[in-house]
């Protein structure tokens, strides 16, 4: 006989619309509360920290412009990941694809002579997208050919890409005019993406990111291929039965997400730094943070526009508290991990109904009481 109340999960047949809208927000709030407790335990005043994050990210024009700046790579990479995850293809290597995009853009900016000035930037974007896509194809092909899990291989390619950047900036591409720093030379003017006024918002990349999100939404929701992506992700058996080619879908979404991450890398080197630098200097983990951006948007590319701005703000605010409260840069990972964990668990409420079953003895008593009342 049961003596403890049991918690049971019942699958919902359909999810109320309001519920799937509300849960991500509530999950983030719950995660922030738990982080506040951890901050408290570690001797950091959480409320001061949160106030600083908020004012740092959204409290001034400068903060806002930085939030948008950091949202650009997140939006690009997050859009690609939303599409890939939709097909249940777990590209965890966006960070590496971003770095390869940065390398390709640098190659075109510094080492290929003879490109007319007005074509220099388009060529860099193209090279970055291609590079990212090709880099993503390594795990995709291994999955298609040998059925090797893409999670691990895509992650391994991040480490390899990162060491490749190190090799280049400490070795053959090290700029003679950079005083011994691990940087390449500065890009020529024609290879620099224009910015809005005094901000660091490199708007052509922002426009590309917004376009990518909208087009990806249309692709997933309105096209035949998007239909295949959705069916493959929701019910692989049915997809196979309907004659859909899973491996082709997997390769295509990997290439797409790799290309978008590659473009994000172009934006960072050509829009922010104007040179290739050591890997952490190019991206403080945008490719990994983009996973949260995609998940928080419930894998909806349009939602990614919103969530990338939100997480971008968190990054800017995170920088602010690091400086002000002496926290290490790894603090961002605490936020990332906790939010991801809660958003993931929060999804549960949209898929399942939670029933609490009273122990049998208690339920017998309850029944008797009810009968007495009658």
């Amino acid at each position, binding site marked *: 006989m049961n003596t403890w109340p049991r918690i*049971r*999960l*019942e*699958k919902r047949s359909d999810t109320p619309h309001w519920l799937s809208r509300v849960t991500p927000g509530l999950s983030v709030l719950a995660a922030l509360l738990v982080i506040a407790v*951890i901050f408290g335990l*570690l001797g*950091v005043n959480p409320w001061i920290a949160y106030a600083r994050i908020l004012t740092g990210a959204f409290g001034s024009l400068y903060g806002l412009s930085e939030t948008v700046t950091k949202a650009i790579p997140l939006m690009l990479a997050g859009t690609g990941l939303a599409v890939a995850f939709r097909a249940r293809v*777990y590209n*965890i290597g966006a960070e590496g694809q971003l770095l390869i995009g940065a390398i390709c853009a640098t190659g075109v900016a510094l080492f290929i002579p003879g490109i007319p000035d007005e074509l220099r930037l388009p060529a860099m974007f193209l090279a970055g997208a291609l590079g990212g896509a090709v880099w993503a194809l*390594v795990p995709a092909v*291994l999955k298609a050919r*040998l*059925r*090797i*899990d893409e*999670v*691990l*291989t895509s*992650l*391994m*390619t991040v*480490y*390899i890409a990162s*060491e*490749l950047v*190190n*090799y280049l900036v*400490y*070795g053959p591409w090290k700029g003679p005019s950079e005083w011994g720093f691990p940087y390449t030379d500065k890009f020529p003017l024609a290879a620099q993406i224009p910015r809005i006024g005094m901000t660091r918002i490199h708007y052509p990349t922002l426009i590309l990111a917004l376009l990518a999100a909208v087009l990806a939404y249309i692709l997933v929701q309105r096209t035949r291929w998007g239909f295949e992506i959705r069916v493959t992700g929701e019910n692989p058996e049915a997809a196979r039965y309907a004659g859909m080619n899973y491996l082709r879908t997997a390769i295509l979404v990997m290439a797409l997400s790799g290309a978008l991450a590659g473009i994000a890398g172009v934006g960072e080197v050509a829009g922010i730094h104007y040179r290739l630098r050591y890997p952490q200097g190019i991206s403080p983990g945008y490719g*990994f943070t983009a*996973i949260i951006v995609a*998940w928080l948007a419930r894998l909806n590319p349009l939602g990614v526009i919103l969530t990338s701005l939100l997480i971008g703000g968190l990054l800017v605010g995170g920088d602010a508290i690091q400086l002000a409260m*002496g*926290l*290490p*840069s*790894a*603090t*961002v*990972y*605490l*936020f*990332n*991990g*906790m939010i*991801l*964990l809660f958003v*993931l*668990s929060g*999804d*549960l409420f949209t898929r399942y109904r939670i029933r609490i079953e009273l122990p049998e003895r208690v339920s017998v008593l309850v029944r008797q009481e009810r009968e007495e009342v009658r």
Partner: protein
Amino acid sequence: MSIWAYILSTLQAAIPAGTPLLYGTLGEITAERSGVVNLGVEGMMIMGAVTAFGVSLATGNVGIAIIAAALVGGLLALIHGFASINLRVNQVVSGLALTMLGQGISGIIGKQFIGMPPRAQLKPVPIPGLSDIPVLGPLLFQHDLLAYIALLLVPVLWFLFYKTRWGINLRSVGESPATADAMGVNVFQVRYLAVFFGGLMAGIGGAYLSIVYTPAWIEGMTAGIGWIVIALTIFAMWDPVRGLLGAYLFGSMRVLQYRLQDLGISPPLLNMLPFALTILVLMLSAGEAIRKRLGAPAALMQPYTREER
């Protein structure tokens, strides 16, 4: 130095270099045998590393430090266990979240330890008699206690997996939880225990890094070892003995990496090696799996529920 002595000293150094990998791999093999993939190994290891270093600073006692690291690893694993066993969330993403969490918390806790010298260390304990055997003696019997325990765990786990009731239960839960349940095995309990054990092992592996292998705290010092563990689990075909081979193979790789640096090869290129080798190893095991029809536990990554059978 003769070639032979060079090889011997590389292999001898490979055992301490491979020990954290071996702990992690043995733990992950156990968890995956029960049907739960935990991609949070990197996070549990780094938490183990920071915990062990901090506790050893505070107490000066290596034993307490290792136990604390194991428990912290186990505790983190239980978060993943709850999410994947009870809440049935996506195990890939939940494990990733755990890794990020570990990197974040260890960075914050560890900031105060950066640059501090260790207060307690684990010293090599040559085994009397055995350590005097030529070749084998220095190779196997002149290490520290944790390295010996890892070696011993391999036959112990092999015996548990294949020769005991407990092992049958574990494997059946990973292959077909519904059948195991019908046979009267408590699927949830077995999975929780296996995942918890995986966390304990990852925690000890992390402790080995920060108080034995490189006695210091360096932010992000696991540097991808936790991910190599996941690959080694596949390479090992979920078998502890093959896990041992894989861990020491990668251990010798790490040793070679440092030695080739002395020959003037660019360090970034050498740093790529373990990750390139991981991909290569995955390709080889995929080929072998297809040839010999070996494979992952059938119910890997599948949550179990009684109601929806």
